[in-house]
Structures are given as structure tokens and as C-alpha cells.
């Protein structure tokens, strides 16, 4: 049967190549950054930081990858293969921290250094990097919403997914802050947008239909405000609602102009990407990260270090940026 011959030929070819392949040499240490999903502006901007660190430091090779769909399983599979590939360090922005514990433990067992971002409950990480204290960040959003809506009325919060820990912490931080104002009523909190502007838009429309008198929206994922802004604009409620949340200036610009989104805050994902790689590099070299240290990136000049959920540490910066209609043009991303 010719099929058998084809098979046999392949097997022979395979065995010859096997030997040849073993000769390939290992290059300089590689740090791979794994993000939640590829193609979203937030992570495209992060990739700039990852590349920048590689350019500034030619002793390491840096790169960024991420699944095409925001699915924790797909992200776990990517990391699984990196562990098999035996890269020097993995820097992860987890889709869902708890589902990665297993694979990151295997990474550690194989001598791979693990650094995370936005995952302060992660056990199997050496260093988790947070741009800021999350509860405080959520409270800041809420404070602005409260001020804008006159400290009374209905408001709601969005999260990328309920598994995205930081999003939930921002929503909770906001809710806690709102307790100061008895007139404010939180309705159907923590709507999941699954990091998809269309889902956020549909959710926001549903909420506007259900609560026509709603005044405040707090976005969680970087694209939530875009979806909310679109829904608000379509409903013609620009002046009656207050939309604040995390977002990127370029994406949100037109909604800031129209007033559908009132203000956004963010931390520069480029800096976060840079810092993650810097920290990973330091861990590879065996350098210790100390409280009050300057990591050489804006917002991370004086980081605070505390104990993590596992054996690792959590490094917290003060890297937030507030932007509204007047100054969003200053940020080219």
C-alpha cells in the first residue's frame, strides 16, 4: 500500500533529522510575556514595553504572546508549551489566576522564573507586579463618579470577567467607597464584558433599558468604557450619565469628546510590560527587589514590597494616570 510507504519514508526522514536537531545551540536567556489576549490595544501597547526592554538590554531576548481568544484554557496551553520549550522566564498577565497555578508550578519545577502582573492572589509566582493598590484605585473611580452624579442615584460596575481578580477588586473598592453616600444605589453590579467591547455595549444597553434613570457606570476591563460610551451615546444620555473607568486615550478619545465617557484612568501598559521584563531579568540574575527601590520606570520609582500569597513577593507601584477631555491627546496610545 502506498500509504505505508509514505509513512515509512517519513519515519526514516524523522530519525535522521532527530540527530541533526540535537545540535542546535542555546542562545541568550529568553523572557516571554504571556498576555490575556492578542490584538487588544492594551496589550499591543504592552508589547511596545516588552520590545523596549529587549532593545535596551541585549543580554536578554524578550517577546510577547497571547491567545487569539480570551479563554483561560488557551492561555494555559500557551504557557504549557513555553514550559516544555524551557524559556528562562515567563511573565504572565493571567486571564484567571487560579487556573494557572498548576502550570506555573510545573514551570517553577523546571527552573523557569515566573513573574506575574495583576494577580496578587497567585501562589506560584516569584514576583507579582501591581501598578497600584487595587482597592484604592476602585475607590478613586467611585469618588469621581459620586462627585459627577451629585452623590445620589443608581450606578453600576463592569468587570472583564468575574475571574479577573483586579477588575473585581476595583468594583468592590468602588462599592465600598459608595457606602459613604447613602443616596447612591448600586444596581446589578459586576457585569461581565469578557474583554469584548460589543459585549460591554450590549450589557450597557440592557442596563439602560432596565434602569432608564441610571446615572453612573464604572468600567473594569480596558474596553468597557468604549462599549458603555457607545450605548450612552446612542441613547443620547451623554449629559445625564457619568462614565468613568479604565481605558486607553486613543480608543476612548471620541467618547471623551462627545461626553459619553467622562474620564478614564489607566496605567501605561507599556511601562507595566517594561517593568515585568525588568523584574524577570533581575530574578534571573538573582538580584533582590527591596522596598522603596527605583525600577527606573515612571510610577515605579519607589515601589513598595510586601509578602505574596505564596512564597513570592508583591511589588506595588504608584503608576496611575488620570485623563479627561482636556488632556487625553497627550497620550499617543
Amino acid at each position, binding site marked *: 500500500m502506498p*500509504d505505508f510507504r509514505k509513512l515509512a519514508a517519513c519515519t526514516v526522514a524523522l530519525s535522521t533529522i*532527530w540527530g541533526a536537531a540535537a545540535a542546535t545551540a542555546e542562545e541568550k536567556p529568553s523572557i516571554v510575556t504571556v498576555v490575556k489576549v492578542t490584538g487588544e490595544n492594551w496589550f499591543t501597547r504592552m508589547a511596545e514595553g516588552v520590545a523596549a526592554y529587549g532593545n535596551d538590554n541585549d543580554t536578554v531576548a524578550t517577546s510577547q504572546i497571547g491567545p*487569539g481568544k480570551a*479563554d*483561560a*484554557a488557551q492561555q494555559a496551553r500557551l504557557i504549557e508549551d513555553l514550559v516544555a520549550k524551557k524559556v528562562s522566564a515567563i511573565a504572565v498577565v493571567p486571564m484567571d489566576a487560579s487556573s494557572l497555578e498548576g502550570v506555573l508550578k510545573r514551570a517553577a519545577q523546571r527552573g523557569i522564573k515566573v513573574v506575574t502582573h495583576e494577580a496578587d492572589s497567585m501562589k506560584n509566582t516569584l514576583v507579582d507586579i501591581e501598578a497600584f493598590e487595587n482597592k484604592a484605585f476602585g475607590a478613586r473611580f467611585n469618588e469621581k463618579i459620586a462627585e459627577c452624579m451629585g452623590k445620589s442615584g443608581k450606578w453600576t460596575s463592569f468587570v472583564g470577567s468575574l*475571574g479577573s481578580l483586579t477588575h473585581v477588586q476595583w468594583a468592590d473598592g468602588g462599592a465600598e467607597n459608595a457606602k459613604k453616600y447613602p443616596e447612591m444605589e448600586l444596581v446589578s453590579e459586576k457585569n461581565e464584558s469578557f474583554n469584548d467591547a460589543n459585549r460591554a455595549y450590549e450589557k450597557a444597553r440592557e442596563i439602560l433599558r432596565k434602569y432608564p434613570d441610571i446615572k453612573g457606570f464604572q468600567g473594569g476591563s480596558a474596553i468597557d468604557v468604549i462599549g458603555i460610551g457607545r450605548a450612552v451615546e446612542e441613547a443620547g444620555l451623554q449629559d445625564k450619565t457619568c462614565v468613568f473607568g479604565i481605558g486607553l486615550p486613543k480608543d476612548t478619545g471620541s467618547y471623551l469628546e462627545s461626553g459619553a465617557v467622562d474620564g478614564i484612568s489607566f496605567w501605561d501598559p507599556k511601562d507595566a510590560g517594561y517593568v515585568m521584563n525588568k523584574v524577570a531579568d533581575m530574578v534571573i540574575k538573582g538580584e533582590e527587589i527591596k522596598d522603596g527601590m527605583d525600577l527606573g520606570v515612571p510610577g515605579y520609582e519607589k515601589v513598595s514590597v510586601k509578602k505574596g500569597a505564596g512564597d513570592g513577593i508583591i511589588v506595588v507601584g504608584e503608576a496611575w494616570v488620570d485623563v479627561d477631555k482636556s488632556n487625553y491627546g497627550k497620550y499617543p496610545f
Partner: protein
Amino acid sequence: MAFQVDRQLSFLATVNVAAIVAGAVLVGASFVELYNFQSMASQVPELGFLALGVMLAMISGNGGIDLSGIALANLSGVAAYFFLRGAISADDAPLLFTWSLIGVALGVGLVGGMLNGFLIAKVGLTPIIATLGTQLLFTGLAIVLTNGSALSIGYVEPLDDFGNATILSVPQCFALFLVVALAIGAILRFTPFGQRLLLLGNNAKAARYAGIPEKRILFLTYAVCGLLASVAGIVIAARTSSVKWDYGSSYVLIAILIAVMAGVRPEGGYGRVICVVLSATSLQMLSSLFNFMNISNFFRDLAWGVLLLVFIATSGFDFRAWFRAVRS
């Protein structure tokens, strides 16, 4: 019945070998070392069990499909851990905990599968509608139990071993996948149930006139699908040390892709287990190869499409011959 090498089988075997060869050439030693094979093998079962379920559903004919697989897998894991975490201490009795977890998960899977079977065989709903409905039901239940967040199981040695340790260099979960696949293959080929299922899928009317208990067979088939889904759920729980309702939301379509690529006929009546296994491994190896080579994940979706079309094109001739044989 002798073991046959048909076009599907040889095509899939070629893809498997080609992926390894390409890996060895393009990536180098790290791709062909034992660790990577173990790593790839242990990634197969999650999807593999689901694909076996899809295969059985497809074989049963009448537009048979199981869209609720991954939802039921997650629900099994979530429910098992939810009910056990208060009852049995994982620290004091890890072995009892693990077996209980497996038991409850299988039970949930069986009940879920029986629900699908009931809706399809007894109520007479179209499989795609019935399983779409139960998919939402299972997902909803898992969300209600957990409030939408992940439940972290933590380190439980026997469970962790099942997900990560090897037996004679073969990852335990992959070994189980092979054993289950072999069993299903044997059932399809050698038992009256298997033969009746194939006949039913081939021609439901003829099967009815031949006195084959259609409803019972459909019911059993979907119950087994549910059981397979819960095994996938146990594998997921063991490998991620956690359970969550939306894990693997992209798996529904990939599991169907694996089955179709394995040559399972969507109209029913034909499907080979060995092809499903090879289809699952080839997809995994190509996927890992792309990861090793830093190829974009968007290209991967495109590659699956191309692969599927190439497969259909190369096996087209055989299908035609088969149809002619039936008509004559």
C-alpha cells in the same frame, strides 16, 4: 473484522509524523525531547474526551451533536468540589477526597448526559437544540454554585499526580485517555450495542424496522457522552488545581473540529476512534509547534481551516466511492 488502514487514518498519521519532523527541523532538540512529548500528551485529554463524546453523538445520526460537553465538564468539576470541600478534608484524607471527587463528578456527568439523552431520545428534540439548551443550563448551574468565580482546590497529591505525574513515562491522564478510547473503540466494533448504534446512525428507518431499540440506544449514547465530559472535567480539575464555569469556552468548536477531521460523518453512521485520537494528537502537536515557533494565534485558526479543507479534499475520492457502493 481486520484492522484497516484507510485514507483518513493514513492522512492523520502523516500529519502527526509531519508535525514531529517539522518540529525537529524548525525548532530543534527542545521539541523532540521527552518532556515536550509528555507536555503535549497531557494537554490532549481535556479536548480528547470531549471529542470522543462528539464522535459518539455524531455517529448516532439524525444530526447528532453534543454542544454541552465543556459546560458539563466544568459543572462536574465545580459541583464535585463544591459539595465535597465541606464534607471531606483534602489534607487529612487526600486519597478519599480524590476518589470522592471523581465519583461525584462522574455522577454529575452521568445525570447531565442522561438529561441530554432524555431530551433527545424520549422528548424527541433535535440534538443541536437540546444540547444548546442544556449547555446554558449546565453553565448557569455552575455559575450559581460558585457566584462566577473560580474555586481553588489547592494541592491534593493523588489528584495532582493524576493531572501531572507519569506512569512508565506516559502522563497518567493521557494513559487514561488511551484506555478509554480503546474501550469505546472495542464497544463500537465488537458489542451488539456498538453495531446497533452504527446501524441506527446509518439508516434510522431501516434500524427501526429491524427492531433496534432506537430510543434506548440514543439515551445510552448521550449518557456516555455526559460521562466522557465529566472525565474531561476531572482532568481539568486535576491539571489546573481549580474549577471554574467558563474554563475552555473555545473547546466546543475545537472538539467538533477534531471529530470532523477524524472523518466522523456528521450525518451519522461512521466514525473511528483511532482517527479521533490521531486527530486530537495532530492538532495538539501542530498547536505546540506553532507556539514553539512564536507563530501568531490568529494564524492558527487559519491553519485549522486549511487543514480541514485539505483533509476533506484528499479524502473526497473515498467518500464518492463509498456513496456509489451504497447506491449500487
